[in-house]
């Protein structure tokens, strides 16, 4: 082979390889998330940086995560999945994985290792609760109250059981309109030891016991179904205490200066993360995996905490959490995982609720409607 020929061939090969690579990955991506501040934090922390690195790619947001499970099932049955990467809570990811609607992920080859070489599987640890789930953040459902609306002589609440104490803390409360979390708290405040809560809740008597405890405050509860409601209700003075996601409380207290106080006791940790729908074409799958690899690496997850007070799901990201991008306050003390806030916590029991959700929900709704 003459030198000239070699150069030509190499160039052609390189060109072909480059061309093939570009062709292997789709150029359009549809990302699905929850809208609002959370989607914005994702956009700023890793979608915009990704698009800067890959100018040929365009990304579209779809704020449909709250109905993602049903929509994915419908798309799958119609044989036309239009989403590439979908943000869902862990329980939905388990459901999607069970239904065969989400793709299984191998953390060792498809997710980035930590900078110090720890494998992704170890870095995420127990948070990889499903074969299809790529965790992003840890959030918690926790309580907050308005000190000025509580009786002046009452001690500041320091336990979730203040929610059930109508004598010391009279006034309306708000709780989420579902049995999950509320049943655990009810049993805990009815005297069940924390490590026995799910054993008790698995029995018919335990479920009755939980509902009976909730019954003591039923006529004083406003039930919410969208997490934006509790901060609004508390700001209006409609309620004196209630539960919502810690990020919602953070935004009300720190960004809007509302006079609320957080009550971290017995907060319930839950996870939110990505899934890739099953049945994508090879090019789209390659693009989705490439994006996921970037978006869930150590630095990107730490970056997200500058925009929203949710804890990164990687152990290696925690030391990198800095300050709020606009307020300039340290974010670490506002993370649900901060040692001061995490003295008494629950982790959402995915396996238990996958089994018992239908059953307990039927009883809960029946109780609620009476």
């Amino acid at each position, binding site marked *: 082979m003459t030198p000239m020929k070699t150069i030509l061939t190499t160039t052609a090969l390189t060109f072909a390889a480059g061309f093939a690579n570009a062709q292997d990955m789709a150029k359009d991506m549809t990302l699905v998330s929850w809208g609002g501040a959370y989607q914005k934090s994702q956009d700023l922390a890793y979608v915009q940086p990704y698009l800067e690195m890959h100018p040929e790619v365009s990304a579209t947001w779809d704020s449909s995560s709250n109905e993602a499970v049903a929509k994915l099932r419908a798309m799958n049955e119609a044989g036309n999945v239009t989403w590439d990467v979908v943000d869902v809570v862990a329980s939905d990811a388990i459901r999607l994985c*069970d239904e065969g609607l989400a793709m299984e992920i191998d953390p060792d080859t498809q997710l980035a290792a930590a900078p110090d070489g720890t494998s992704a599987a170890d870095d995420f640890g127990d948070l990889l609760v499903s074969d299809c789930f790529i965790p992003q953040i840890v959030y918690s459902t926790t309580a907050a109250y308005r000190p000025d609306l509580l009786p002046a002589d009452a001690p500041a609440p320091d336990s979730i059981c203040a929610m059930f104490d109508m004598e010391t803390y009279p006034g309306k409360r708000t709780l989420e309109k579902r049995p999950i979390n509320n049943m655990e708290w009810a049993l805990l405040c009815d005297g069940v030891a924390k490590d026995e809560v799910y054993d008790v809740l698995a029995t018919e008597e335990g479920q009755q016991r939980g509902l009976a405890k909730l019954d003591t405050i039923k006529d004083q509860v*406003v*039930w919410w179904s969208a997490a934006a409601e509790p901060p609004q209700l508390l700001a209006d003075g409609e309620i004196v205490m209630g539960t919502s996601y810690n990020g919602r409380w953070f935004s009300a207290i720190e960004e809007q200066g509302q006079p609320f106080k957080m009550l971290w006791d017995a907060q319930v940790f839950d996870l939110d993360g990505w899934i890739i729908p099953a049945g994508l074409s090879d090019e789209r799958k390659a693009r989705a995996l490439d994006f996921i690899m970037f978006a869930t690496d150590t630095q990107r997850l730490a970056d997200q905490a500058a925009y929203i007070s949710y804890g990164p799901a990687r152990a290696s990201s925690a030391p990198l959490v800095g300050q709020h991008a606009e307020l300039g306050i340290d974010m670490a003390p506002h993370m649900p995982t901060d040692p001061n806030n995490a003295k008494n916590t629950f982790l959402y029991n995915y396996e238990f609720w996958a089994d018992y959700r239908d059953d307990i929900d*039927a009883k809960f709704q029946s109780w609620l*409607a009476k």
Partner: protein
Amino acid sequence: MSDQTTSGRVLAADGTPLKTSLARALRRQKLRALALIAPLLLFVLITFIAPIADMLFRSVENQIVVETLPQTVSALADWDPESGDTPGEDVYRALAADLKIAAKAKTHTRLGTRLNYELTGASSLFRKSGRQVKKMDLEGDASIKDAFIKIDKDWGKPDIWRTIQTYSPRYTNGYFLNAVDMQKGPDGPEARPENQQIYLMLFGRTLFMSLMITGSCILLGYPVAWILANLPARSANMLMILVLLPFWTSLLVRTSAWKVMLQQQGVINDVLVWLGLVGDDARLVMINNQFGTIVAMTHILLPFMILPMYSVMQTIQPTYLRAAKSLGATNWTAFWRVYFPQSVPGIGAGSILVFILSIGYYITPEIVGGNTGTFISNRIAYHISSSLNWGLAAALGAILLAVVLLLYYAYDKIVGIDNVKLGG
């Protein structure tokens, strides 16, 4: 006559019997008409009727059990659930063979989700078993039954086997039974435990509240439509804009506005407290209950009542009223005996519109309904989007559809559907 044959039949010019010839011409006309509406007909069939039929079909469809566990289902056919014993080794062997295939195709978890609707715990049982059955050796002599019980002790109880056997047919009435607060028992259908009953109550509440909403729409809408119909065109058009204005506002905004108005720290309570009519510690509860739902939905659906009433009232001649009065009728008699009967078609049309819209309403009861003001549609939405129990959602939807059709039929029998006018 020349065109009459000996048998007496009338013939057309070309010799065929006139009757046949006419029928052919008519058929051609009908076909042409059909061809003209064919695009619309196909569109409606494909995009409206077919999806509804497909969704309703899910309320009885139950192929997943027999398709995922074909060998188990046939091996289980001889098992007597009343015996209190678990089935024999052969059934466990069949289950292992089925689950090996299902785990490879990843359909075992889907079956687990399906059976979990009937038996709590089936979801994790199948997830766990599917993972471990891959390692099971079917060739050896070891007891497969013991191996399954080692995976989970639930396999050693008759409950899961009874559930598989009960739900092995390709079609089931289980979803419909569930939708009317019943379940499949050992001796046929039986009532669910009282602490799980909810759907019949919700159906009843949905009907009751829809009637209340329709009633309040009639009461509020009738005078407005009357004023609109009797004002000069200029001012009537101005007022008409006010009636239509809500249509141009988002449904969520209108519903949320009612929250601001009616909540305990809201506008109305503040005014009442300021006037001294209500104590500050006894503010009225007007939202997150039935009252709030009825108020908000009446407001939202009012235009659907006013518009048909208005277009019917416009056609009522004012001379009739004048004639009645000149014959000695009081104002009330003239209205009640002469005007009102003529406006009934408008009330009928408006009522049907409002009632049918409100019976399937979802978003407003969800936001302002609290726990006493939610509708059956809220549970249907829950089963579609959260629990993924589409079979139950389809059964609830089918019942709701049947109730609406039944009411429509009853309305036709009592009032007469010819007596409904949207205008003219």
